[in-house]
């Protein structure tokens, strides 16, 4: 039984590393191998979801590395495996753009393996290991086309931001051990003693917010859009971005252990959902819009985790995975065909490629939260859980739902119009478009669109209660009779209103004051804030300490200030400072003493006599004085 679980993790990891290590030789067959491995992983995932195996191995002193598939993990593994398969099939279609197929598919499989371990890990060290490997895979994939500097800079920003937040997990592990949870078992974390539980919760929450791009870390998702579209679809929509939310869902008991845990998570989720929704509405680039929408949708999951709605969160996660993956793949298809992702340039793209347009429309409508589609149902369950907590939360959630309708319709409006005559000027701004969509791209789009629609079934009470039992929180509040139609009405009216405003010509902006629009378009100015508050001071401090270490002689800076030193003087003094300055000072005094010590050796004999006589006289006096 446990072999199945090790196999589930091992297949993608070994296949990925094999593809990576073989380098350029396997580039041609790589897509096929990738898809095969993904299919095998999907099979294993489904099997393990059914059989619910468990396995563990010794890792550190008294700490084991455990894997288990319970209700929540079962759903997650299937979702991850399915989306991975779909995305890999899509990227097989885009193989001429992803020339180094071996490296691409290797990294994607490596990522999938890490994600599977994250969702099935039962102990903190193993979770942290998979967590960091995901970050590294994301760095490698964002910077896949490494020849273009802006992509590699974006990869660095993404990696460093997530790693900053991951420090929380390191501290959480230490706090757990100090708090008495010696085996670092995830389920037992809530039992940590005394003040350590606060540090533990803070660490976990920080790491989750970092990975799921919640406020204040959400700007890295915008930079992550430099990645190829399949990567955006898999990592930055369905799996990695949701890993943070999954962690909070998994550790909801810990959140309840501290008074401030739940509310903080809930309100951050709600705030992110609303604010990032507004940011999405202000975007002019389709992928940026979808990225901001991802942040806001994950905000809902975090809200659900904060208010104890684990089943709701899981439903939202699953539905969103399908919807957003579909949208990103569609955007990828158009980018591949038209070479642009600017909304004005994409006018009429849906009409040009009907299948892609149809899938995009289905997913966009689901994203808007229109009834009977999947996200409407999942979002209501989340709002129900929020309503049980506090009305203000419910109101914010509803507002966020409305905003999601607005930006979905905005995207739809552009895409569904007929292509204008001068549309070709906007093409090929990002890359050289091929003006066609390869046959392999179509099936994944359709499957995901179908899933986006089918998951609407979650609204049925029977299905939702089955999900609650599977996830292990049977007493979770389900949406009451009046909540479902209310949210449907809000979504429909918001969509209609947005369509009308958008309809009055390309000029009008949804947001009246220009300043607010610019602030929202720049992802709430989070990146500039992060750069000025954190990155620039650290780099300045680093340069200052380097200079201090290299050159600050105890008095040198003072003397330099007195402008006596020329540049040559500075160069001459360019060896190390600090204690080393002390050493050089000692060397200088030693040199002076050396000259002094040689002075009595004058060569004149009578001076020797005199000095010897004085020496012994002093010694005698010393001896006499010590009576």
């Amino acid at each position, binding site marked *: 039984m446990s072999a199945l679980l090790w196999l589930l993790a091992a297949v993608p990891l070994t296949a990925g590393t094999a593809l990576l290590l073989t380098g350029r030789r396997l580039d041609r067959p790589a897509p096929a191998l990738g898809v095969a491995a993904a299919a095998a992983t999907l099979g294993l995932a489904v099997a393990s979801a059914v059989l619910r195996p468990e396995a563990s191995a010794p890792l550190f*002193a008294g700490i084991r590395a455990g894997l288990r598939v319970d209700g929540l993990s079962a759903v997650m593994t299937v979702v991850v495996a399915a989306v991975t398969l779909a995305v890999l099939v899509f990227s097989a279609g885009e193989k001429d753009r992803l020339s180094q197929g071996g490296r691409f598919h290797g990294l994607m499989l490596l990522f999938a393996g890490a994600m599977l371990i994250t969702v099935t890990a039962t102990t903190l060290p193993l979770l942290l*290991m998979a967590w960091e490997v995901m970050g590294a895979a994301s760095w490698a994939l964002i910077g896949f086309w490494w020849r273009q500097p802006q992509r590699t800079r974006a990869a660095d920003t993404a990696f460093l931001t997530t790693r900053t937040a991951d420090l929380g997990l390191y501290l959480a592990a230490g*706090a757990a051990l100090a708090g008495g949870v010696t085996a670092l078992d995830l389920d037992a974390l809530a039992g940590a003693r005394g003040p350590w539980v606060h540090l533990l919760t803070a660490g976990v929450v920080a790491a989750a917010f970092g990975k799921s791009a919640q406020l204040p870390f959400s700007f890295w998702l915008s930079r992550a859009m430099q990645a190829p579209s399949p990567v955006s679809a898999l990592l930055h929509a369905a799996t990695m971005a949701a890993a943070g939310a999954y962690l909070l869902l998994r550790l909801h008991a810990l959140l309840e252990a501290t008074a401030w845990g739940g509310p903080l998570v809930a309100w951050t989720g709600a705030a992110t959902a609303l604010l990032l929704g507004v940011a999405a509405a202000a975007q002019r680039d389709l992928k940026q819009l979808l990225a901001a929408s991802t942040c806001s949708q994950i905000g809902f999951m975090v809200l659900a985790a904060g208010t104890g709605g684990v089943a709701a969160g899981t439903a939202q996660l699953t539905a969103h995975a399908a919807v957003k993956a579909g949208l990103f793949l569609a955007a990828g298809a158009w980018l591949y065909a038209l070479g642009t992702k600017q909304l004005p340039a994409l006018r009429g793209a849906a009409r040009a490629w009907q299948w892609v347009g149809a899938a995009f429309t289905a997913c966009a409508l689901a994203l808007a939260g229109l009834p009977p589609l999947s996200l409407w149902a999942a979002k209501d369950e989340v709002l129900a859980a929020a309503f049980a907590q506090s009305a203000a939360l419910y109101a914010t959630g509803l507002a966020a739902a409305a905003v999601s309708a607005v930006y979905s319709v905005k995207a739809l409006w552009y895409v569904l119009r007929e292509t204008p005559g001068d549309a070709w000027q906007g093409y090929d701004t990002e890359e050289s478009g091929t003006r066609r969509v390869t046959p392999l791209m179509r099936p994944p789009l359709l499957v995901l669109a179908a899933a986006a629609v089918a998951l609407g079934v979650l609204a049925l009470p029977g299905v939702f209660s089955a999900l609650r039992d599977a996830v292990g929180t049977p007493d979770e509040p389900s949406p009451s009779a009046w909540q479902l139609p209310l949210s449907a009405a809000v979504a429909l009216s918001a969509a209609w209103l947005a369509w009308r405003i958008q309809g009055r010509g390309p000029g009008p902006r949804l947001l009246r004051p220009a300043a607010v629009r610019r602030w929202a378009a720049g992802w709430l100015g989070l990146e500039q804030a992060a750069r000025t508050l954190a990155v620039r001071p650290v780099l300045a401090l*680093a340069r200052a300490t380097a200079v201090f270490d290299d050159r600050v002689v105890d008095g040198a800076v003072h003397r330099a200030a007195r402008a006596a030193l020329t540049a040559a003087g500075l160069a001459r003094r360019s*060896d190390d400072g600090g*204690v080393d300055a002390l050493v050089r000072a000692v060397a200088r005094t030693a040199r002076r003493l050396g000259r002094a010590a040689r002075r009595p050796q004058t060569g004149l004999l009578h001076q020797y006599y005199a000095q010897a006589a004085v020496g012994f006289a002093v010694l005698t006096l010393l001896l006499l004085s010590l009576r």
Partner: protein
Amino acid sequence: MLTLVVFLPLAVCAGLLLWPRPVSDRVCTGVWIAAAAVDLALAAALWAGFDPDGGLQYEQRADWIPTAGVGYHVGVDGLSLPLLALTCVLFLAVAVYSLRETRRVRAYACLFLFLETVCLGLFSALDLILFFVYFDLSIVGMYFVIAGWGHGERGRAAALKFFLYTFIGSLALLLGFIGLYLAASPHTFDITELAAADPLAGRGAYAALVLLALGVGLAVKTPAVPFHTWLPPAHTEAPAAGSAILAGVLLKMGTYGFVRIAMPLLPGVWREYALAFIVVGAVSAVYGALVALGQTDVKRMIAYTSVNHMGYVVLAVGAAGVLSGTDDQARTLAVTGAVTQMVSHGLITGALFLLTGVLYERGRTYAVEAYSGLAGPAPRFAAAVAVAAFASLGIPGFSGFIAEFQIFTGSLAAQATATALAVTGILLTAALFLRALRQMFLGALRLPPGSPDGRFGDLAVPETTAVAPLLGLALVIGVLPRPLLDVIEPASRAVAGLVAR
């Protein structure tokens, strides 16, 4: 058996030196590689025959200077065996790497064989004076490597500073040993007897003085801030192989000294001043990372990351001395993390320095700005450096993470604020490595004017065969840590017990 492992390289070195007929470079390096390989095989045999819970094994004892209480006492336990194996692996890698060396190869091979014996001797020494003899000889050996084969005029100045600095440290160490020697009732330098007797139990001020001497001596060698300023010039001027050994093995002598001598022999006073070591460790970690971030020379940057990594070890060793609020498992975890970090840092930073040697051979400069887009002409080289860099910044799947996780988890209970401060170190290390990778390997291709033949060749066979096993071992330890941890944990539990008594 152990003495054979230690003195085999010295015998080969003597043979090579006194060989009457002139020997070609190829043969010299061949003999050197063979000797290193045989020694590695013997070390592997030692590891195979080693019983993890057996404490000190392969012990050999003989009288050297009985009247002065000095004896030739060697033995191996969970702490020293991994370092012994690491030394053999690193010296073999360096031997293979030096196939491309052309300057005075015979003297070069002899010097490194001599250094191997000295390093193996130190890790197996169980007598303070034997430890000191090897400690000093390692300084002499490394001085001649840096002075003889360093880069030009600054090489000699760096070598002189290295010699003077570490020599002051070694003399402080000697004064500490003499303090211990005189405190023991039957005057002896033997580590096991001193550990059992715990001579400085009651004597507060005197014990503090001895600990200060030992602390300074070992801190200079570790190096811990503020005694670290000899390291960057020594590294930038040393040849690649010399840097790999200096970072891979010689720095471990300082940290090994903490775990083998300072903690077991001075438990009471170590507990009393544990906080000082924790602070030094945390400051070294953050300061090293910060200064590394500010560097423009890639080799100096890596040298400063060594200060950062060794700072973690000092933090862990200090945290193992704090009894209040920590349990036995946390302290054992900290010490195991410290020893694992020594092994992992040896492997990874050794590989990194060899790779910078490859860079210098082709570009004749270490400046980061001079290169760009090297992934194009040299994909294998770029991949190796990327893997080494990620391993060094602590990505799971490599031994760096295993060590640093244990250190942070074990140390947080002892001193939360210092550990939290030190944890930011891994973030700074990540930033500096990524920036260097992006600047040098990604983007459009640009080579420094100084590169001899105008193009940047990929890794040659000797370089790949030198670096690949090191990174492979780091990967194996990262993925399957148990075989290594099974050997270290009993010994670190013993040391934690000794400190707590």
